[in-house]
């Protein structure tokens, strides 16, 4: 009787112990996830903040107004970031359009052609190789090459850099998306009279939409955040938002925080949009 009671106690304690560990890990995780974010938000509205105070002594939206070009900036390092933001946005949109125009047919071909898996793997690794090296040496060399053909300091040069970076992932994602569509669905379309193109447009494309949208968003965000390549190729005439963030982070933390939050906006926006869009509405229809 006694033994049973003691045993029960140990088991109960064990699960409380386990639960505590789980909660601790979860809290630590949240801490690492959200503390930098909170810190950034606080910094963006801090006007005067000296150590050892835990919170800013003086808060205000001054730097926000300067960043958005609403008030003229007098502090060193704080500039109107709206032009840079719009440039980043514009470049990202163009990059997405060109990337998807290439990645959709390329991904479809990769998915449909009967290439041996080894060759497919090798092709993908070939594309990924530039990313495997330290980025600065890679892009410094790229800058030297672009300089020879007059692409440095131009928007086209920057777009090309973003294209190369984005294409790899885009083609990979589109190829994988198209592979996951059962070929019978296209064959069924052809059996009722649809040409290859029509079957693609009316059956494959709508069903691939979630994957293709995910791919576009990924390319968009990658382009918005791209720094190293843009830095080397874009200077001195092309200034994107990440470059502004870079210059600001040395001189003015509050301003850098504002810029960082501005850069976060597209990511958060897309997260919300995708979460609503990707509800599994289009699954089902295959028997068995």
């Amino acid at each position, binding site marked *: 009787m006694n033994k049973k009671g003691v045993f029960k106690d140990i088991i109960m304690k064990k699960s409380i112990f386990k639960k505590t560990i789980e909660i601790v890990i979860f809290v630590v995780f949240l801490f690492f996830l959200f503390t930098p974010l909170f810190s950034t938000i606080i910094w963006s509205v801090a006007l005067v903040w000296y150590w050892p105070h835990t919170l800013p002594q003086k808060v205000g939206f001054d730097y926000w107004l300067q960043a958005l070009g609403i008030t003229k900036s007098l502090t060193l390092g704080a500039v109107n970031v709206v032009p840079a933001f719009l440039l980043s946005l514009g470049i990202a949109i163009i990059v997405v359009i060109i990337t998807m125009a290439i990645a959709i047919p390329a991904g479809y071909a990769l998915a449909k052609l009967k290439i041996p898996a080894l060759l497919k793997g090798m092709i993908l690794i070939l594309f990924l190789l530039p990313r495997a090296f330290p980025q600065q040496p890679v892009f410094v060399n790229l800058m030297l090459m672009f300089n020879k053909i007059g692409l440095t300091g131009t928007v086209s040069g920057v777009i090309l850099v973003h294209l190369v970076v984005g294409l790899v992932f885009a083609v990979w994602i589109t190829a994988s998306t198209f592979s996951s569509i059962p070929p019978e669905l296209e064959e069924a379309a052809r*059996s009722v009279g649809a040409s290859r193109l029509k079957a693609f447009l009316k059956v494959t494309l709508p069903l691939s939409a979630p994957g293709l949208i995910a791919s576009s968003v990924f390319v968009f965000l990658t382009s918005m955040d791209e720094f190293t390549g843009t830095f080397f190729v874009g200077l001195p005439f092309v200034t994107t938002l990440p470059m502004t963030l870079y210059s600001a982070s040395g001189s003015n933390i509050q301003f850098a925080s504002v810029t960082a939050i501005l850069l976060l906006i597209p990511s958060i926006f897309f997260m919300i949009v995708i979460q609503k869009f990707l509800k599994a509405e289009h699954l089902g229809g295959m028997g068995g």
Partner: protein
Amino acid sequence: MAILKVDNLSKNFGKVKAVQEVSFEATEGRVLSLLGPSGCGKTTTLRCIAGFENPDRGEIYLDDRKITPISPEKRGIGMVFQNYALWPHMTVYGNLAFGLQIRKVPKDEITKKIKKVLGMVQLEGYENRYPRQMSGGQQQRIAMARALVFEPEIMLLDEPLSNLDAQLREEMRFEFTELQKKLGITAVYVTHDQAEALVISDKIVILNQGKIVQSGTPKKIYSNPKNKFVAGFIAVTSFIDGRIDSFTEEKKKVIVKTDDGLVIHSFNNSFDIGQKVSVAMRMNVIKFIQDENKSDKNTVNIFKGKIIQSSYLGNTIDYKIRMGKWEIRTNAEAKYDFKLGEEVTFHLPPEDIIVTRES
């Protein structure tokens, strides 16, 4: 309504000879089944007819028109896939209308045709449902409706019922036959289920390893399986191997002798003396003899064996009997309550057993 002719079709996948010199004809308004085990080439043959595979050799004719070089969408062939392949992002209406819209049929006619075909598969009013909202059997019927709605010349079916449970399969078999007869449409039906082929076919073509082994009406195949493979495939379950020893009754009958001295009488089927054969028998052919004195002393094919296995199935019992080096399975009424190890005497009526070629 058309006649399909497949002439000397061959298709290899690398080293694998999936289809080898296959030729057959499907008659207008009739059902032709391609029957065989997995990997026998039946699906590849069907896909060649549909146009999804390009044969290496041979031609396919539809209505005397050579369709081998024509792409699938221009062949005018309706196809039902094994897992239905209904488009999940379209309603039933969308699925059925697709083929008609491509043919530029006016909208009100489309609605009419869809209503009609849904009536034929007993799914009236389902236009606005999505495939995921329907059961397997319903999806299968929509798949059939989709293949029929544009009134094709011929219909191809790739094991359409194999994903359904046994009872539903039997119901759908009957429904398919009814529908096919009502429309008078020609059909080529691929299946691995010999019972299914037996029920629905006007003609069966049996394939093994890419080659045609036997073709004919169900009755002809079942009463005269050409060789051991066919006999085994159509669920004849026990075999005794031996050689043709001699003829009797003016060559109408043969005597087969086995290595271990068994003597079996049966009917001749153009055999030669010394030819290797397999005596095949179905499950309910054995007649047990319980009182030896009652049987006619002149009866042939009386054997003794030992019960080595018995499975109770309710009304009947499955027995496995060992006779020399042979095992015979039989299904007998439960009144024969034999014990394991019991010695039994039984009669194999010569007219109920089939002698087939070994190969």
